[in-house]
């Protein structure tokens, strides 16, 4: 029977539950399920929405054999031109359950490209994961978005990381010389040295705000030319990404001499077995002009430390933000956060290698917000 891919509707929901049940029975983790509701709870489509989700199902008769989602949004390229793109996320295939359906994964991807040729994907857990490999096979451009971390409580951190023996963190610990047994001291010294550098940052004031208003638009206009590509960060988009009713996020507005110089969104990540019992905070998103990025990151760090985080993590693609992270006492660690651009999107972002160090991509992009926070 032929596979037909069409928008996910209410009539498909029962079959979707069965699909999810089969995925779980095949040993899929808790994230290996598609949305139960055909109507997106996160970023539903509304009139004049510039950011919204659409869901699609692959049907064999009345049975669901696959599904995927597109997050439609606007990106700014070259500091001035807005373009429509979409994030390809949550692709799931019956191929996980039965190899008879090995074709479904490729059919989902091709269908998505027909609907929106300018696609990106973000996250994926690393270049060696199946989706990343599939995108590479299709000729997409892939690279790892830099990862930064700051250890707030070194003793707890090292105790947890040693016991977890998670490969990525083991390489970090070895780099820090933690296996010699002087890890906590080494961490304090290394981060202390960075703190001395950041002490030279000019004074600032951070205030918690409930939402983003016109002041965010001024910042958007002032700093967007520093990015060769950035998803929209105007006030209307930010209101949709971080609705005031969502208490998972802490929104900070940073001022200096009464002038608003930037904003940041921070939050505590959902508990994850790879971090053991650690409380992990994330600098989810941030925005400021060049000279003010350090102050914004220091404000974010202080806010997360005050909330009792043991470890603070972030991903950011922009080179200048990366320098600010390191000035703020963050280490650069091994990343598994992949950004992948379809052929058409890559064409729009040419020269790609020259431009990518000034892409503005953070954990706020892709499908990370509801998944991780």
């Amino acid at each position, binding site marked *: 029977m*032929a596979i037909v891919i069409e928008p996910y509707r209410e009539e498909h929901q029962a079959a979707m539950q069965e699909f999810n049940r089969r995925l779980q029975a095949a040993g899929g983790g808790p994230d290996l399920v598609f949305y139960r509701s055909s109507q997106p709870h996160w970023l539903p489509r509304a009139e004049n929405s510039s950011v919204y989700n659409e869901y699609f199902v692959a049907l064999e008769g009345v049975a669901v054999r696959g599904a995927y989602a597109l997050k439609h949004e606007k990106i700014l390229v070259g500091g001035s031109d807005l373009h429509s793109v979409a994030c390809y996320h949550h692709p799931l295939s019956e191929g996980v359950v039965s*190899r008879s359906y*090995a*074709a479904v994964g490729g*059919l989902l991807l091709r269908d998505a490209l027909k609907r929106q040729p300018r696609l990106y994907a973000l996250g994926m857990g690393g270049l060696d994961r*199946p989706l990343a490999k599939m995108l590479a*096979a299709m000729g997409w451009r892939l690279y790892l978005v830099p990862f930064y971390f700051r250890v707030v409580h070194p003793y707890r951190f090292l105790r947890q990381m040693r016991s977890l023996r998670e490969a990525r963190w083991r390489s970090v610990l070895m780099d820090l010389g933690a296996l010699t047994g002087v890890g906590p001291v080494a961490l304090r010294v290394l981060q202390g040295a960075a703190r001395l550098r950041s002490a030279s940052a000019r004074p600032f004031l951070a205030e918690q705000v409930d939402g983003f208003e016109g002041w965010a638009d001024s910042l958007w206009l002032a700093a967007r030319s520093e990015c060769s590509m950035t998803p929209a960060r105007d006030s209307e988009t930010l209101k949709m990404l971080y609705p005031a009713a969502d208490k998972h996020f802490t929104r900070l507005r940073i001022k200096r001499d009464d002038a608003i110089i930037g904003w940041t969104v921070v939050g505590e990540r959902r508990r994850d077995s790879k971090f053991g019992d650690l409380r992990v905070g994330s600098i989810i998103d941030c925005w400021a002009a060049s000279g003010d990025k350090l102050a914004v990151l220091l404000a974010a760090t202080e806010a997360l430390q005050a909330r009792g985080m043991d470890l603070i993590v972030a991903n950011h693609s922009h080179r200048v933000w990366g320098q600010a992270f390191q000035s703020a006492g963050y280490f650069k660690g091994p990343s598994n956060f992949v950004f992948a651009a379809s052929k058409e999107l890559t064409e729009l972002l040419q020269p790609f290698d020259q431009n990518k160090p000034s892409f503005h991509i953070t954990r706020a992009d892709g499908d990370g917000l509801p998944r991780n926070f």
Partner: protein
Amino acid sequence: MISRFRVRNGSSCTQKSEHKLTSSLFEQVRTIASDLFDVAPEGITAESSPETLEKWDSVQHLSLVLALEERFHCQLTPEEIEHMHNIGGVVRVLEGKLQSASG
């Protein structure tokens, strides 16, 4: 069902008898599959499928589609991709496509 496809640079096959076309086509597909699935050519039969070849997963299935499109200068439709349940199915899909292009 009518398959829609786009032939980019013309068929790579000249006029041959059906038997020779089939045999030659099978060998070409077998070579591609052997390389992709890391199996000796003798280990690839018409019945070889994702269920019998360990490395024939979703990623490699897509790679197979792309390799075939490049090798035979054609664009496979979703319906055709679905019919590629095993190597025999792959050959049959390509036979139909190439014969239509040359006919």
